[in-house]
């Protein structure tokens, strides 16, 4: 009798969280798949049209452009902040004067809302009066500074720089925690064997940090697919869609053009792009479970 009651206990504890999760997360995810097969303006009942949205999608120049922009973002995100964050973690993992101030300065950007970062950088990039062009022009590096957010060739990179500015501190935090968990005796042993600093880094420290690197990579990829706020606040994807990314394109198609079925199809593509990385993350979590 008692044991029967106890069997029910976990289900009772989970009842409300699971219902909330089903209603707001799992259910909507499934419904997005259905919506992607419909024509829907958000008002009348969605009408089923099969795979038409997807066929149109791959002929849509803005979609292809957004996809490529996401890939550029991803490429920059999985390299630059990772190298910088790891480098900083290596330097700051030692007793170094002013350690706290250094760490705080790199953490700061990730605490600001992306909207706030976007606005502040929008001002730095301002063609007239903005700090960057002011410096470039008064030091005569260039006669007239570029339109950081209005030039189609550089606008995406201008935004990615802001994203990197925010991300480096995060990567640094993760690597610092990883470095703390390394047994110092292993590094000591390498030194005694006469290994140089670089050699110790490449063949002892970096391999030991591999689990952290996996997490950092997954988070970087997921974050670059989620990129929305900065683009929305700084350019809305312009000029002429030059800085459009999938998340932003999906929002505009759905809520500005009322093509919600089409928007759902974009969301489905985003789902499959992130799926592989979600699975890698889950695989990592499962490996941790095995150790119990």
């Amino acid at each position: 009798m008692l044991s029967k009651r106890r069997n029910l206990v976990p289900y009772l504890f989970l009842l409300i969280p699971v219902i909330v999760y089903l209603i707001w997360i799992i259910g909507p995810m499934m419904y997005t798949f259905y919506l992607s097969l419909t024509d829907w303006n958000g008002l009348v009942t969605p009408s089923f049209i099969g795979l038409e949205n997807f066929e149109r999608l791959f002929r849509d120049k803005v979609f292809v452009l957004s996809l490529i922009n996401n890939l550029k973002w991803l490429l920059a995100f999985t390299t630059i902040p990772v190298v910088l964050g790891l480098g900083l973690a290596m330097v700051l993992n030692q007793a170094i004067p002013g350690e706290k101030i250094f760490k705080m300065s790199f953490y700061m950007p990730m605490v600001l809302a992306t909207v706030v970062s976007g606005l502040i950088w929008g001002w730095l990039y301002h063609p007239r009066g903005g700090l960057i062009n002011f410096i470039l022009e008064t030091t005569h590096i260039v006669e007239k500074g570029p339109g950081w957010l209005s030039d189609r060739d550089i606008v995406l990179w201008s935004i990615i720089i802001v994203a990197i500015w925010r991300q480096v501190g995060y990567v640094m935090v993760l690597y610092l925690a990883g470095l703390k968990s390394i047994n110092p005796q292993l590094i000591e042993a390498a030194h005694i064997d006469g290994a140089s600093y670089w050699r110790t880094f490449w063949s002892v420290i970096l391999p030991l940090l591999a689990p952290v690197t996996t997490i950092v990579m997954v988070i970087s990829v997921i974050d670059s697919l989620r990129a929305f706020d900065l683009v929305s606040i700084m350019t809305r994807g312009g000029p002429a869609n030059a800085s459009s990314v999938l998340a932003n394109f999906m929002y505009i198609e759905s809520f500005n053009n009322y093509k919600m079925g089409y928007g759902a199809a974009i969301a489905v593509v985003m789902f499959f792009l992130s799926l592989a990385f979600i699975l890698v993350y889950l695989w990592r979590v499962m490996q941790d479970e095995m150790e119990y």
Partner: protein
Amino acid sequence: MKSGYFKSPWRVIVYIALILSTFLWLVPILTALITSVRTFDDILVNGFMSLPEKITFVNFITAWERGGLKHYLPNSFIITLPSLFLTLLLSSFGAYALARFKFKGNRLLFYTFVGGMLLPFQVLMLPVFRLTDRLGLYDTYWGLIGIHTAFQLGFCTFMLRNYMRTVPGEIIEAARMDGSSELRIWAQIMLPLTMPAIAAIATLEFTWIFNDYLWAIVLLRSDSLKPITAGLATLQGQFVTDWPVIVAGALMGTVPTLLAFLFLQRYFIEGLTLGSTK
């Protein structure tokens, strides 16, 4: 003691590079601070590097009064605090069950929570928009509180469950022997022992929910209900070229999360690293 760091010239070079890059990292925030206390005319006429004609706080007042921050900032708290409370309450329930009981579907539920926290928001956006509307919650605080509570359940349950597994089983067994109900064990043993993790997660979640922009623009229409993030976007449209006002607004909007970070930095960092290493 610490000056022993500079034992090789190589380290001196690294240190100088570190100081320079730290300064570079702070330039955007410093620029914003300097801009916010000057008028736009002053900056345009005299150039950014000139000494200000005079220091003025008029931009902050304009952003607060005419820019609407006096509504937006309180709104952010009205949305963030209930979401934070609800998501922590529900996830500490769920996490306890997942951490401490063997039952069918345990692992499946756990992995569902973990996987869900990595979903792109766009995958949920349209159905949640429709659901919120059907529930009569579109353009209300509760619509936003609903999605924040639900979405953050994934991360919170994941972190709390892992932490609760580290609590020694004997303590719980002893309480069960004494005839304590499971609810009592949760409230009087599990929660107090989980407090370090809850504090870390709460600090992090406060920042995340407070800084949300996407859900705010999808689920709210009325200007009077907008949180600071969506409000700043409106402010930007209102003061298109008056950058000192926009920047002053942005700085004010970031004060709550910045304070939370400065005072709870340890928790914030712990929260970020809870899931990455063991």
